[in-house]
C-alpha cells in the first residue's frame, strides 16, 4: 500500500463524514427529513449485526459467531453491562473454536 493511496482513502473517508455537519451546517432541516435521518441508524446497525454474524466471502456462513451472538442477545435482553456482552460473545466464539 502506497502513502498516496492511504492519504487518498483518508481524504475520501473524511469528506463523506463531513458532508452533513460541514456542508449543511446549521441550516434547519424539514421535520420529514429529520425523521428519516433519525431512523437511518436503525437499519444500518441491524445490517451491521446481520452481516458481521453471517457474512463470509460473498456468501452467508453459520459458524461460531452465531451461538456467540445468541449468548450476546440474551445478555442484551437481560440488560447486562456492555463490556460483559462483548466479553461473553468473544469467549463463546473462542471456546467453540478450540
Amino acid at each position: 500500500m502506497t502513502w498516496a493511496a492511504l492519504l487518498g482513502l483518508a481524504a475520501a473517508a473524511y469528506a463523506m463524514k463531513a458532508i452533513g455537519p460541514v456542508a449543511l451546517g446549521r441550516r434547519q432541516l424539514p421535520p420529514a427529513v429529520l425523521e428519516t435521518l433519525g431512523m437511518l441508524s436503525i437499519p444500518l446497525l441491524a445490517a451491521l449485526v446481520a452481516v458481521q454474524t453471517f457474512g463470509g466471502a460473498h456468501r452467508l456462513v453459520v459458524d461460531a459467531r452465531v451461538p456467540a451472538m445468541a449468548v450476546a442477545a440474551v445478555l442484551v435482553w437481560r440488560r447486562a453491562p456492555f463490556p460483559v456482552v462483548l466479553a461473553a460473545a468473544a469467549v463463546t466464539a473462542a471456546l467453540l473454536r478450540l
Partner: protein
Amino acid sequence: MSAERRPLTRRAAAIGGATGVYGVSFGVLSVAAGLSVAQTCAMSLLVFTGASQFAVVGVLSAGGSVSAALAPALLLAARNGVYGLSLVPILRGRLGRRALESQLIIDESTAMARAQPDPASARLAFLATGISVFICWNLGTLLGAAAGSSLGDPRRLGLDAMFPAAFLALLAPQLRRPGAPAAALSGAAIALMLVPLAPAGVPILAASLGVVPGLWWAHRRAPREAPET
C-alpha cells in the same frame, strides 16, 4: 445533571475500551498484510473508521491489489456520510468545530448519540464516545502493530464475534421507537440478501432503504392510535 451524565461517560469509556481491543487486532492484521507500522498508525489516525480499515487489510492480505482494497473501504466509509447527515441536528457549533467533530463520526459515536433522549445529552454522548474510541483505537493500533503476529489470530480469540455483539447492544435500546423493528428487520434482510451478490460495503449501504418500511409502519400506526387519546 452531572449525576445523570456519569453513566453516559462510563458507557463511552466501555465502548472505547472494547474498540481498543479491535484496534490491537487491526494493528496485528495490518502489519501482517504488509503495511508498515507508520502506515498502520496513520490509517487509524486519519481514516478512523474501523470497518473500512479492516476491509483494506483484509483484501490486501488475501492478495488483492490496492485498488481492489480501496473500493470496499470507500463503500463502507459511505455509511459515515449517512451518519453525518443524521447528526446535523446535534452538531451545531462553529464551522471549525464541526469540521473537527466530523472526524469522530463513526458507528459507535452515532449510535450512542441517537440513543439519547435530548440534543444536549446526544451531543455529550457523541463527543464522549468519539473521543474515547479515537484514543483507544489509536493506542490499540500502535500496540498491535508493534507486537505484530506474536498475539496470534484474532479470530481464534473470538474477537470477530465482538463486533456484531457491540452493534446489537447499541441497537437494542433504539428498537422501542415506532417503526424501529420494521426498519431493523428490513435493513438486516436487505443486507443479508445482498451479501452473496454485491461487493463488500454495498449490503450495509443498501440497508438504509430499511427506513422506508420503518417510516411506513410508524405512520400507519399513528392515525389508529390518535382517536383513543
